[in-house]
């Protein structure tokens, strides 16, 4: 890309490239007319031309994920859920044991009195 020419409107190359590749509008600028007369913007357009063909091929190919991807994810999720349920049950059981112990101690204390 030529560095000698400079866009008279001082448009950023990223904006010009977005317009050229995807038709993204550039505020208050009639791009086709401007680019036709601006060597700097023409250089930007040339610098990004053709790369979309690569994307098209990759999009066309679109590899499928191995089934194992979701099966392993589901397996990990089941393990995490089971572990969480087990932990909650243990906490609950521990709380009940602790509560029973307190009841027992209170009863014994009263009996000793």
């Amino acid at each position, binding site marked *: *890309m030529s560095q000698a020419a400079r866009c008279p409107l001082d448009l*950023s*190359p*990223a*904006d010009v*490239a*977005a317009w050229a*590749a*995807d038709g*993204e509008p550039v505020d208050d600028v009639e791009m086709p007319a401007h680019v036709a007369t601006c060597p700097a913007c023409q250089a*930007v357009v040339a*610098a*990004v*031309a*053709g*790369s*979309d063909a*690569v*994307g*098209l*091929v*990759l*999009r*066309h*190919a*679109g*590899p*499928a*994920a*191995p*089934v*194992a*991807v*979701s099966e*392993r*994810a*589901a397996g*990990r*999720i*089941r393990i*995490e859920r089971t572990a969480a349920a087990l932990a909650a049950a243990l906490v609950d059981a521990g709380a009940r044991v602790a509560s029973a112990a307190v009841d027992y101690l209170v009863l014994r204390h009263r009996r000793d009195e």
Partner: protein
Amino acid sequence: MVAAHLEQISDAELVVRARDRGDGVALDELLRRHRDTAYRVALRICLNPAEAEDIAQESLVRAWRSLGRFRSDAAFSTWLYRITTNTALKRAGRRTDVVMAELPEPPGPDLDPAGRVVQRERLAVAIAALAALAPQQRACWVLREVEGLSYDELAEVLGLTLAAVKGRLFRARAELTAALARYDQDTPTENTPNEDTPTKDVP
């Protein structure tokens, strides 16, 4: 019967069932439905099939863990793009090996065998150039050119401003175009005399 019924349910409804009711069947369907997207994005960013499988799996698990915080004002797929991209970029920062074992077949059944070889070579050059990009640039390019996200979606998924998105896309595209131009310059076409073939003194 059950599977056919599930396929007609929207992502949003599956999310509600999986998140609010702990419906495992709905969750399995959600994971099955989106595993290709997660894998494809991961593969295009890390360019390594084995790594992409791990990233896709991890992304699906992360999505489930965060499902409670998922705001349904965005599409589930957009949200998963963000999780997968972030997971892939975190790993990409740690890894330097790139293995793009599977090379897609260029479209165009009308190409002759020689033309097909050239197209495959050009694609290999482009993928090598893609691999040489900074991971953030590559992610931006993949999400735009392969996944077809809009500029606004890119900004949301990548957590960037619109100007930053345009800047990254510009640099990525320029690198790919330059790599292909170098290849075309170095590759003799049908009309270019082959240096190995004598053109003079042929009896």
